């Protein structure tokens, strides 16, 4: 670990998450720490129920940890459950998400789902649309731009979600099994896109994945087990 925190896109420090209380108490994450440099692409592996999604949503500022500190781009944003800034606008400006299940707004067309993220961030309708089409073109779904999510396959929906996540050029990209619904080729393409965005924009990327075929794309590999985080070394 270097002392120069500016070089870090993400610093997660001693995150613990306890769901419920008493008999139903579940410790999903124990003292998990991870630092991701700008431009670094991290894979997060681990068995089901090990706490990967819990960690990712904590770093994504939508599921605050019970204790621990999260610093993004050098700014302390969460200290335990206490927000140090307006989390929602911080998410909008700095964080892109792709979740396990595709999460598109059902009443917006594919292109509008990408567009909305940029419009919310203050971009004009016109430039938002052209960038949305551009991203979708790269991901091979431009021809479905005007379809509603319900008319798209799972893989197509996932690619729209990827386009939405990177549309605002975030400094942090968090992806929870983004390639589960994609074939090997498309899956690899998405991973490579993350690497490209990370390297070009200096974003920190964390990808939860089970797909061991594409691991060569990643700079670092972490593994979670029973709520504990450790770096993976082959």
């Amino acid at each position, binding site marked *: 670990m270097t002392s120069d925190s500016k070089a870090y896109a993400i610093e997660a420090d001693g995150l613990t998450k306890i769901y419920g209380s008493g008999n139903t108490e579940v410790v999903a994450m124990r003292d998990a720490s991870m630092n991701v440099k700008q431009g670094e692409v991290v894979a997060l592996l681990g068995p089901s129920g090990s706490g990967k*999604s819990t960690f990712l*949503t904590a770093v994504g500022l*939508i*599921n605050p940890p019970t204790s621990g500190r999260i610093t993004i781009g050098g700014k302390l944003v969460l200290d335990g459950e206490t927000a140090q800034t307006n989390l*929602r*606008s*911080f*998410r*909008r*400006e700095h964080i892109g*998400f792709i*979740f*396990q*299940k595709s*999460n*598109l*707004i*059902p*009443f*917006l067309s594919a292109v*509008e789902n990408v*567009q*909305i*993220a940029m*419009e*919310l*961030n203050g971009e004009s*309708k016109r430039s938002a649309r052209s960038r949305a089409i551009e991203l979708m073109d790269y991901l091979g779904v431009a021809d479905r731009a005007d379809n*509603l999510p319900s008319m798209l396959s799972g893989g197509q929906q996932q690619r729209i979600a990827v386009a*939405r996540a990177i549309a605002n050029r975030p400094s942090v990209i968090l992806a929870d099994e983004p390639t589960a619904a994609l074939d090997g080729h498309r899956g690899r393409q998405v991973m490579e896109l993350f690497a490209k965005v990370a390297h070009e924009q200096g974003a920190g990327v964390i990808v939860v994945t089970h797909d061991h075929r594409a691991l060569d794309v990643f700079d670092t590999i972490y593994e979670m087990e029973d709520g504990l985080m450790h770096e993976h070394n082959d």
Partner: protein
Amino acid sequence: MNLATKDIRHNFGRFALTAVGIGMLLMVVMGMGGIYRGVVEDATLLIDRVGADLWIVQRDTRGPFAELSRVPANLVYRAAAVPGVQSSREFVYHTIQRQRDGQPLRIAVLGLSWPTDKGEWVPLMTGRPLGQSHYEMITDKTLGMSIGEQLNLGKETYTVVGTTSNMISSGGDGIAFVTVTDAQAIQFDTPGEAVRLERAARESRGEAFEQAIQQPMMLENAGRPTVQIPAIARPQISAVMVTLSHGANPNEVTKTISGWGDVSVYTAEGQRELLLKGSVEKVRKQIGLFRVLLTIIAAIIMALILYTLTLDKIHSIALLKLIGAPNTVILGLIMQQALILGIVGFGIAYLVGQQLFPKFPRRVIIANADLLELAGIVLAISVLSSMLGIWKAMKVSPNEALS
């Protein structure tokens, strides 16, 4: 990008059906107001149109529109003699119910002071005012008679010579205008048998009367027709209408006439007030309360609909929060849908009402002021009813997008 309209387009069928439902409800609210306006208008139209400055009625009664009023026919001449009075007319007014083609036909019979008043002031749709002193009438279109049609009333047959519209009694019955003498003939029509019985009754009363025994001539008098007997009063009239001469002081004239012990006098405005405060007041309250209830119901239904529309969007709202949409965007989404629902509902209410209200048996008058008021109410309930949905939306955690 407008999320509200995008969502509406996506759920168009349901939204349209909801808007139609709200529209129908608002149409009823609108109609209730219109019915009240119609009642007031119908009730006061006659007073407004007939153009009398003062009404002389039976002492201590509130006039022929409120209750039974009886004044002697010669009151017309007494009134005409008062300084400042330009002319005076009889007012004879009563409602009858007859049968026509198997249907009950209610007619408000109004006597015109022939020959000074031939009904020129009555707004005619077809035909002409009265042209002779007997057996002609002008009827309101709600009575369903056309020019040339004949109707038997009492012992005579009356021919429709003109038709008018919106001349309706406060009870909602169409008015038929005839001359005063005809109106009285209709009102006091007595069958031959009744006349014979009355004559016999007079004779038997006379026979028990000492003076009649001493003077047989009197008994003979008792057998003569009513009109020839000085002791029996002529048929009475309902009221006398007075037109003041130009520049006359109405207060002076009123003061003079109210000095007479047998009558009360009201200005036209006073008569109008009495009518509105009396019979129409209860209708107003009744309809007013009903309107308030309907408005509350509309608001509750709208709130429930907007709430369920919001519940359906919980996942999208959570997702919007997750990607950083500020509260104003989410509030705007729900509020705009509420307003669109309200405005479209109002439009439907107005358009359907325009087609439907003229088919109602009584007049439904949609005044602009009422429309504006209702529009304000609709905006208010749209905003209020979206509160429940907004409250729910504000509570949604972005986490719910993942579940």
